Structure formats: structure tokens, C-alpha cells
């Protein structure tokens, strides 16, 4: 990996039409090289809007975004895709391809309209498939993959872009524990290679293990930012998530870990028929 680009949001505000409050309100954050920077926050806090803004799918009302020293507003979509590889949250294989064809779409911004796949393109695709650990799926169709394979194949497509900046929006949604851990370990390894990884996630405890920096969003604003220990604090998280919780230590590696409170005590029977009665 050659020089890795940093990603910087500078007081970014996004106002959707017909909404009273902005989805993002003066958000500043930065992510740099060789590290995972995680963006966390409750539903509707603006996490996905952050990714949408970066992809220029929503206009900024104020502020700017930079990749390295370049303002994202000045970059063509094609150049953007060579600098940054983004894995958006939702995607369905409407018209399925074979996995190697699908990963090959990561080369779109590198190829001319009629240019054939060159040796460099083919190598990038096979490297990406191997790196993401989906070699055994290469000849299968994207609509035949399991949830875990599908997410990893999408990450493989992003790797085929050969961009030093990687942005992922909830790449482990709907995955079981083993597949989720595999994705986090893959992202960790990719960051260790020198890539800049910006990860949007709901998985606070795993983020706390793997990320170097965290940004906590709430109502479109940065509620806390800094190291994992700066952000993973009971009083902050309790207020932002509006739920009683404690932060303890993850027994595996000692990272901060969050436990939500309330609900019934261990072993007690569920109460029935009391709802609505005094």
C-alpha cells in the first residue's frame, strides 16, 4: 500500500427538504491511515447520511469534505472511486452476476468504456477475492450467496478498487457472531496494511475492540469523539442512547464493553397479563 489518504469532514451540515432539523449539523471528523475510525450512534443520528454525503447523493448545506488535501466537491465520480472505496449499507443483487464478475465492477473507474480487462485489472480482482477470503465463491452467482458471503464479496469489490481509503456502512448487519468477527478481523488487517478505514457500525463492543478512534453521533451532531476510552463512557452513552447501561471491561482483551440494563432478572419468569392493569 502506497501513501494512504486521510478523510476529513469539516463542519458538514446536511438538511433534507421537508425536515425540521438537519440530518447532519456541523459535523467534523477525521480518519487517517493505518487505523479504523468508527462512527457510532443511535438510529437516525446521521450515520448513513454521512456516507451519502460523501458519495454526493445529498447536497451539503454547509461545510466541506476532504480526501487528503482535495475537496470532494472538486472530484469527478470516477476519480473519487479511485481514491475511496465505499461499501454502502443496502444493496440487493437484482440482476445477479457471478462473483468474479461482480468483484470486477470494482474496476469500473479504472477502465475505459470499451477497454478490456487488462492484466492489472484481473490481478486486482483476484487479489481482492483472495484477501476477502471468498475464493471458494468465485464462480457462484451473487444471488446464491449466504449473508456472510455477500457482505465479504461486497468488501472484495471495494478492495478491487485499490483505493487507500475504505468506508463501510454497517458491513456486519444481519451477520451471525462468527461472520461478524471475520469481517471485523478482515477490516483490522486491512487497516494494518496502511489503509484508512472509516467504519459505520451499531456494534459498539466490537468497535471498541478494533477501532483506534470513535465518533459518537446524536441528532446529527458529534456527541463525543476521541479514543475508544474517551467515547465508551457510561454517562455519555446512557444519555445518547436514552437507556440505562453500564460500561465494563471486555474479558477477552480488556477493551471497554457496554451492557444495557433493565429487562427481567436472570431465571425469573416473564410477567404475564399485567399489562394495562394497575
Amino acid at each position, binding site marked *: 500500500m502506497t501513501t494512504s489518504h486521510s478523510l476529513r469532514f469539516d463542519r458538514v451540515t446536511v438538511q433534507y427538504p421537508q425536515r425540521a432539523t438537519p440530518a447532519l449539523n456541523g459535523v467534523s471528523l477525521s480518519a487517517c491511515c493505518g487505523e479504523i475510525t468508527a462512527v457510532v450512534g443511535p438510529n437516525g443520528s446521521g450515520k448513513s447520511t454521512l456516507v451519502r454525503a460523501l*458519495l454526493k*447523493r445529498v447536497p451539503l448545506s454547509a461545510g466541506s469534505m476532504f480526501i487528503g488535501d482535495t475537496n470532494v466537491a472538486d472530484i469527478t465520480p470516477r476519480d473519487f472511486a479511485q481514491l475511496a472505496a*465505499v461499501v454502502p449499507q443496502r444493496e440487493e443483487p437484482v440482476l445477479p452476476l457471478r462473483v468474479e464478475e461482480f468483484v470486477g*465492477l470494482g474496476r*469500473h473507474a479504472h477502465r475505459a468504456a470499451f477497454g478490456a480487462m487488462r492484466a492489472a485489472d484481473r490481478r486486482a480482482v483476484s487479489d481482492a477475492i483472495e484477501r476477502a477470503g471468498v475464493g471458494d465463491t468465485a464462480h457462484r452467482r451473487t444471488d446464491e450467496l449466504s449473508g456472510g458471503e455477500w457482505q465479504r464479496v461486497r468488501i472484495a469489490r471495494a478492495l478491487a478498487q485499490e483505493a487507500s481509503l475504505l468506508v463501510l456502512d454497517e458491513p456486519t448487519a444481519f451477520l451471525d457472531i462468527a461472520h461478524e468477527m471475520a469481517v471485523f478481523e478482515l477490516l483490522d488487517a486491512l487497516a494494518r496494511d496502511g489503509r484508512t478505514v472509516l467504519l459505520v457500525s451499531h456494534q459498539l463492543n466490537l468497535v471498541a475492540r478494533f477501532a483506534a478512534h470513535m465518533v459518537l453521533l446524536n441528532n446529527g451532531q458529534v456527541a463525543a469523539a476521541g479514543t475508544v476510552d474517551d467515547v465508551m463512557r457510561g454517562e455519555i452513552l446512557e444519555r445518547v442512547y436514552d437507556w440505562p447501561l453500564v460500561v465494563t471491561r471486555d474479558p477477552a482483551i480488556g477493551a471497554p464493553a457496554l451492557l444495557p440494563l433493565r429487562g427481567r432478572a436472570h431465571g425469573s419468569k416473564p410477567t404475564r397479563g399485567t399489562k394495562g392493569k394497575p
Partner: protein
Amino acid sequence: MRGAREVWLAAGVGAALLLLIAVAAIAIGAVRVPIADVLRALSGSGDTSVVAIVRDLRLPRVLLAGCVGAGLAMSGGALQGTLRNPLAEPYLLGVSGGAAVGAVLLLALGVSDPSLLTLGAFGGAAAATLLVTAIARVVGGSSDTRLLLMAGVVVGAFSNAAILVVLADSPPERIRGALWWMMGSAADATWPALARVAAAVAILGALLLWWARDLDVLVLGDEPAAALGVDVDRAARRVFLVASWLAAATVAAAGLIGFVGLVVPNLARALGARRHRPMMVVSGIYGAVLLIAADLIARTLRAPAELPLGAVTAIIGVPFFLMRLRKLAA
């Protein structure tokens, strides 16, 4: 790569089928012409009446049906890509209907120049496209592609109604002309008509093939497409417009013909042409095969009467549509 071999095989078999069905369609008819005479007549020698039948009647008709079929199939393939819906096609989207209204309106105003009618069809298709996207936007607030398809069905129904209104108000001699637009027919094939549709299919089809790689990415959704380096709005808009015009050119040449644009691209994908460029090339070939075959059926099944070409393609297409719908729901 394994995928490439499948595509070459599909294209090769399709080309062979195309040649066979074209020769058969020239040979078969009220006057049956032996294959040897067909080949001789094509080069201009042999019995003069046979030469006239082959070169002036059947050859332009077969070529016109081929061009229209290829155009409809490529238009459908491109629309399915931009709308992310394997059930999209110019007829179901109301685009063909809009083209027919454009032409019929000019016809009702007394215009009969075929070039002007073609332009009318282009205008009508563009208007229908705008209307469909506007309805989807107003209803959904965004460019939800399912809404687009439903808006298309509405505009298509409205187009049929508009043609019927024009029809009701027309003198009897014009009614047959207006009906022609609604039923679809390759019977009026002339060399100038063929030249117009062939030029449109060649130019607009080439544009779609040029942009085909964008479609591979657009079909993933707005955000993934933007992430992979496509100017999403511009790419989607130009494909939608050019695919609509391609459909309009076929309507101007042969009236309303449904389901070719639906069936053929899905067939091409099933044959292994999954990416849009190979898919549209294979679709073009099989679209031509399908429509030449459908036209052959239309003019021979109940000869000397001719079945509407649009009815023949619908009879082929509707069961397929239901099957595809079932697969989509599963």
C-alpha cells in the same frame, strides 16, 4: 473465462437461428418459394415475379421485423438495467404507448409523411418518459424504480385511451391507420421505412452498447453506483432517454408490440450473458429472431388473414411474464 464462452455460444447459436428463420420467412407465404430460388432471387436472378416477391415484399418485411425486434429487445434490456427491474420494458412502461399517441395525433391532424410521423413518435415517447418520471417523483418523493414501473402502466393505459378517443373522432379511412398503431404490424414494410428504423437501431443501439458498462453498475443501486465511479443521475437519464427513443423508432416502424423487450433480455441472461454489453448484443440477435418468427406466425397461421403482430408477441410474452413474476416473488 467460462462466462465469455457461454456468451459466444449464445451469440453464435442466435446468429445461426437468425439466418435460418430469415430464409424460412422469405420462403414461406402465399407463394411458397423454394430455398434455392430464394437465394437466387436475393442476388437478383431467376423468375422476375419471384424476384419481386422476395426483394420487394418479403425481404424488407423480414428485415424490418428483425430491426424492430432487435431494437425492442435492446431497449428493454437497457430499461431493466436503469430501473433495476427485470420486468421493465418499453411497452409496459408506457413509452411505446406515448410514441403511438405522438404519431396518431399527427395522423389525426392530417400529417402523413412517414418521417414526420417518426418524429411524432419520438416526441410522444419523450413526453411519456417525462410524464412517467414526474408521476413517480410526485407520488414517491424520490426516484423509486417500482413506482416508475407502476406510473408506466398508468401512462400506457392513458395512451391507449387517447388513441381510442382520436380513433372515435376519425373518419373510417383513418381508423384502420390508427388501429394499425395499436395492433402492431410489419406488413407496411418498405425500403424507406426499413432504412429509418435500421438507422435508428444502429445509432441508438450503439449508444446503449457504449454506455452498457455504466448499466452493470447502475443496477446495483444509486449509492453503490456512485461509490463505483458513475455519475448516477446523468448516466441513468441518458440511458432512459435513448432507450425510449429506440422504442419509439420501432413503434414508428411497426406500431405497438409488447413483451419482446421483456422476454428477450431475460432469455439472454439465462443463456449466460449477465453483464449488460454482452446481454444487449445477445438480446439484439434473439429479439430479431423472435419478431421475425412472430411475424411469420402472424401472416401464415390464418392466411390470407393477418393476425396483429402485437397479439402474437403478447401470447408468447404473457406466460413468460407470469413465470418471471413468480420467480421474483419467491
